[in-house]
């Protein structure tokens, strides 16, 4: 670790007792707690930090804040690598590692800077005009070259090892920015007992107070700040959130913020996230985000060592770093002078002050003399030179004479732009203020006020006053008392005269005139803006899109206004005529991980587990994701390695003896009320009034547009009490639909509905031995004989000696089958009881695969057929459509086009060569016809291997449908290489008479 040659002997807000070591491009350096990476690099005399995007120009540190366009590094390493990290806001920690980016082989010697040699051709939009010939070369040659050069840093690629979380907060007043205006606001509001949240992106609260040598209430700012923070911390309903960037304003007072919980540590503490994304709901908010200083466009203005003047004094005053030993100040206003003063106070030499304003104010002259600086009133810097490190500037004085001055820091000041980003997030357009030469907030979003510099009120006194006043107003709006808000902190006004200078032209370069940068990171020069003007890309959006101005990681914070000013000048308009600068969210870039929070990996979305899940796991089930649910797909026995062998065994067990399968995932809706039957009449296509109590019926419901929505059995448990079942996939959708029908369409019906899906564990018991198995489970007083409990009976029973249960004799498999439902807590016990009772018959648990095979063998429609594109008639269920009543979807289902015979309809398929496998998704093409869209007759919806038939079977939709039974067609499946002959057949492959249903 080397010494820190530019570190001042004293002063600043760093903790000199805490020495930290860090590495940049492999070399070790030292710094202190309280440093940023940028301040520590400057302390060590490191000026060259990065390379620009297009020309790979050497770049240094321009700013001391979030607007930094140049000093971007890859922070950390391995899976924690963070590309494009602004060194100016990266808090130093012990062991920090950073490397420069966008250079090869090294930062100092970057071969890609050869791009600069071609720069005369690489102007804005050059790629739109070339690379067109020959056509195939774009993807093969040109674009790969461009892509190789793309981007700045390298993302980690590997899974992010840290975790993230979200949080929600509510307050009366959100204060955005912890500078003088924000603190004054938070104090005024906090003292009244209001709920206040104060966020600041910095790791230390204070804003510009940290960088300025001023007084408040007659005390040095540091003292005042410490007292203010201590008071705020003592207020129970004030939450101070440093390291928290409010990045976006959304509808109705919702603010997005990200808290960097652990970025200042080598890695997060145990149980702590890296970052936390906040959704803050604020009744009122005050934007007190300060302002961003503006650079000046002149040749060589990107040379490392050219720095914003406010940043230069931040490094001196806050970080105890001398940003240059030999300083030239180039300013267009009064504010830059504070930098000259503070740099001199810190022991730096101020070689010259170039104030572009022609008026020679004697006070300024006196100050320059006191600082020992040459004053060039009405002068400009026409060129900065030095390559990797500034060593000379050329000054053109008011008379036009030029002077070359050696220096290693050029501090540039052109006034400040209010940080009004959040005010434009809801389409608000900033307005130009001719008095202070900047855009100020225009129409404000509801609930938001803007204080201090962010509103263009730049002095310390107005900031304090604004904050306190707006806080009182906000609380007043909310009807809260402001009696306790306390006094307004007072300070003197500082001078803030300004005559902005957007760019310097007319300098003479040696061979080529030097490039003058508008957007540093994207290498947009003033010549590019001129070219855009020449070619007609004059609206500000055209300018930005054509030149990429403002599109870099800083989103134009230091460049948009210069670009607009040059465009205005080129087109003979004023700045507001040329356009406005608006900002889209986020204010600064936000880590994707933070906004994802907890929801990644297995926790991406909730998983629903059936009450029998634990039991299925014990049985060795393989599970499958079906929507939110995890369902048992099949239950391999030891030694079974082929899933199909397992499924065949499970299917045969059902056909031959008995099997059980969890169906708890089906939606179950309790529907009660005097009009319950009438209600069902309107939501289902078939009739319900005549269904006897104690019986179940299959129902089909349509959407209002006439297509099938869902199906299931619904049972009448009492005169005014039904239990509807829905498919697993559509349970939520159907519930919402029923509530719509009830609350919106027919509010006068006496009916109420509630989901009871979670209450019941439900299992299918299917197979010839189903009744015998159930006999061992259902309490003996319940007669299960065919006569007493016939097909479609649905009744309350008890199990296990009085536990309430429901038994439904319904069948999806075509076998003698029942569904038994018990309270979910007994689901596990039910499975064990059934296994015990069925053991003598070889009872077999089966999963969703076998369930699918069993229903396909019987030609029952399911999810694949209920695609939302099929009608009841398409599915062969048209006869269910009652003509005697109105129901949802009736009229639209009857549209002529939906009843044309050419519409594909539902049939079965079997391979002509029985050894062939069928595939769902294959399309049907007539034998001997070309495989074209015109000859496409339909497609296979579902397939299964039928162990009973010992060949593959399929269901599908084909033009002409059942009229074509016996015909052969091609099942064409080119994406899987399939093209086989299949025979159209009845969709019912087994027991068409239904004899097995009755055992």
């Amino acid at each position, binding site marked *: 670790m080397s010494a820190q040659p530019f570190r001042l002997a004293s002063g600043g807000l760093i903790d000199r007792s805490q020495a930290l070591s860090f590495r940049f491009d492999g070399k070790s350096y030292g710094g202190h707690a309280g440093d940023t990476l940028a301040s520590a690099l400057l302390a060590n005399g490191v000026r060259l930090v990065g390379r620009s995007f297009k020309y790979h120009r050497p770049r240094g540190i321009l700013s001391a804040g979030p607007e930094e366009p140049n000093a971007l590094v890859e922070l950390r390493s391995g899976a924690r690598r963070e590309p494009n990290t602004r060194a100016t806001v990266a808090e130093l920690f012990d062991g920090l590692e950073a490397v420069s980016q966008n250079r090869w082989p090294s930062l100092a010697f970057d071969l890609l800077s050869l791009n600069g040699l071609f720069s005369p051709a690489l102007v804005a939009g050059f790629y739109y005009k070339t690379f067109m010939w020959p056509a195939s070369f774009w993807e093969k040659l040109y674009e790969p070259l461009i892509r190789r050069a793309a981007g700045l840093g390298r993302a980690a690629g590997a899974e992010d090892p840290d*975790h993230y*979380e*979200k*949080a*929600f*907060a*509510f307050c009366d007043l959100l204060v955005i920015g912890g500078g003088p205006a924000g603190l004054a606001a938070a104090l005024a509001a906090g003292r009244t007992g209001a*709920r206040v949240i104060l966020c600041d992106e910095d790791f230390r609260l204070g804003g510009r107070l940290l960088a300025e040598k001023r007084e408040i209430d007659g005390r040095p700012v540091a003292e005042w700040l410490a007292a203010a923070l201590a008071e705020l911390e003592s207020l129970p309903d004030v939450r101070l959130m440093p390291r928290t960037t409010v990045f976006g304003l959304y509808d109705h007072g919702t603010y997005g913020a990200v808290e960097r919980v652990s970025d200042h540590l080598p890695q997060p503490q*145990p*149980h*702590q996230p890296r970052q936390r994304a906040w*959704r803050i*709901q604020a009744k009122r908010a005050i934007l007190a985000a300060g302002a961003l200083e503006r650079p000046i466009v002149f040749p060589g203005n990107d040379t490392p060592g050219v720095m914003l003047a406010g940043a230069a004094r931040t490094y001196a005053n806050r970080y105890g770093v001398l940003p240059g030993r030999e300083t030239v100040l180039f300013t267009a206003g009064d504010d830059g002078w504070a930098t000259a003063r503070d740099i001199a106070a810190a022991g730096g030499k101020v070689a010259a002050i170039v104030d572009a304003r022609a008026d020679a104010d004697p006070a300024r002259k006196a100050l320059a003399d006191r600082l020992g600086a040459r004053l060039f009133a009405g002068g400009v810097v026409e060129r900065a030179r030095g390559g990797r490190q500034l060593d000379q500037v050329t000054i053109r004085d008011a008379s036009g004479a030029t002077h070359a001055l050696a220096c290693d820091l050029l501090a540039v000041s052109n006034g400040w732009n209010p940080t009004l980003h959040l005010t434009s997030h809801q389409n608000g357009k900033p307005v130009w203020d001719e008095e202070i030469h900047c855009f100020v907030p225009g129409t404000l979003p509801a609930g938001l006020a803007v204080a201090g510099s962010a509103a263009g009120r730049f002095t310390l006194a107005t900031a304090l006053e604004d904050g306190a006043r707006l806080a009182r107003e906000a609380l007043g709006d909310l009807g809260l008392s402001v009696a306790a808000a306390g006094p307004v902190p007072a300070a003197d006004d500082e001078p803030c005269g300004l005559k902005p200078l957007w760019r310097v032209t007319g300098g003479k370069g040696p061979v080529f005139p030097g490039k003058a940068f508008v957007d540093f990171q994207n290498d947009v020069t003033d010549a590019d803006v001129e070219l855009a003007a020449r070619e007609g890309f004059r609206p500000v959006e055209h300018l930005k899109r054509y030149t990429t101005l403002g599109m870099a990681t800083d989103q134009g914070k230091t460049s948009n206004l210069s670009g607009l000013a040059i465009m205005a000048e080129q087109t003979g308009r004023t700045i507001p005529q040329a356009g406005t600068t608006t900002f889209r969210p986020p204010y600064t870039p936000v880590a994707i991980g933070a906004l994802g929070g*907890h*929801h990644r990996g*297995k*926790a991406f*979305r*909730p*998983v*629903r*587990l*059936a*009450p029998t899940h*634990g039991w299925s796991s014990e049985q060795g089930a393989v599970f499958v994701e079906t929507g939110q649910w995890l369902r048992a797909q099949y239950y391999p026995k030891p030694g079974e390695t082929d899933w199909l062998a397992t499924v065949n065994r499970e299917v045969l067990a059902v056909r031959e003896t008995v099997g059980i399968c969890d169906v708890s995932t089906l939606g179950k809706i*309790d529907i*009660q*009320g*005097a009009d319950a039957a009438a209600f069902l009449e309107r939501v289902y296509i078939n009739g319900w009034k005549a269904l006897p109590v104690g019986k179940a019926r299959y129902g089909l419901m349509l959407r209002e547009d006439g297509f099938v929505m869902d199906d299931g059995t619904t049972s009448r448990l009492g005169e005014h*009490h039904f239990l509807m079942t829905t498919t697993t996939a559509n349970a939520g959708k159907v519930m919402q639909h029923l509530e719509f029908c009830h609350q919106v369409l027919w509010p006068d019906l*006496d009916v*109420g*509905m*509630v989901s*009871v*899906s*979670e*209450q*019941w*564990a439900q299992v299918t018991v299917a197979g010839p031995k189903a009744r015998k198995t159930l006999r*061992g*489970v259902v*309490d*003996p007083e319940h007669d299960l004989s065919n006569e007493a409990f016939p097909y479609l009976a649905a009744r309350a029973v008890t*199990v*296990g*000696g009085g*536990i*309430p249960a429901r038994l439904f004799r319904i069948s999806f498999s075509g076998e003698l089958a029942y569904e038994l439902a018990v*309270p*979910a*807590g*007994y*689901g*596990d*016990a039910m499975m*064990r*009881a059934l296994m*015990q*009772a069925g053991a003598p018959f070889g009872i077999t648990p089966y999963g969703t695969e076998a369930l699918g095979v069993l229903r396909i063998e019987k030609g029952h429609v399911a999810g694949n057929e209920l695609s939302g594109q099929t009608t009841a008639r398409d599915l062969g269920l048209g006869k269910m459509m009652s003509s005697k009543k109105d129901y949802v979807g009736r009229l639209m289902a009857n549209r002529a086009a939906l009843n044309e015979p050419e519409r594909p309809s539902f049939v079965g398929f079997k391979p002509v060569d029985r050894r062939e496998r069928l595939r769902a998704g294959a399309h049907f093409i007539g034998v001997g016809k070309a495989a074209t869209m015109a000859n496409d007759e339909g497609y296979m919806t579902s397939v299964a291997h039928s162990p009973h038939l010992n060949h593959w079977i399929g269901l599908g939709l084909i033009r002409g449908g059942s009229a074509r039974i016996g015909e052969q067609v091609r099942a064409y499946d080119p994406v899987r290489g399939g093209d086989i002959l299949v025979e159209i057949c009845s969709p019912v492959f087994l027991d068409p008479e239904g004899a097995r249903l009755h055992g």
Partner: protein
Amino acid sequence: MAETAQWTPRSAWAGIAQPGTFGAAGRGGVTATLLEGHGLASLIAAPGGAEALARRVEQSLGLALPTAPRIVSGAGHDVIWSGPDQWLLRARSRGEMPSLIAELARYAAVSDQSDARAALRLSGPHLRDALAKGVMIDLHPAAFAVGDAAATSVAHLGVQLWRLPDAAEGPAFEIMVARSLAGSFWSWFAASAAEFGCRVVAGRG
């Protein structure tokens, strides 16, 4: 013939949460009590029938049905507003549910939901901080009073929660989640409470 002894109910938290501690050691910022054994039913009053139902509940249980999102609690029962003309009735002992359901069925559409939810009592000095990581409503004492109840969503799943009188260790809430989602809820809760340290205890009503 089934043996009654086999029919042991399984807790909604079985295999998901068990007594013990997790997260930051020695902090005890949050305590989670796994609630078992409650009876629960949903009540929906028929059009114009809410008053009659309210009278009946008042007579039978001594509880006034709330007409806003609140919980009203008695010695053995609670009624929780869950929608216009809709409530949840909770009984400390689920054994009485069949008779309660039978009694109230004359005044409302009643559905047994005793097994449909997994429930927790949560308390502790950092409870609100932990809940704020997923609960999208304002639980500040000034915004959510003792007895206030809400149906809302947390980490993509639905919950019902209400505020109890503050406990010795800090604020206290109860929260119910669909039984099938108990595991996912716990995954979110455990991640959210870990930084404060969490103690898990088994409890009854």
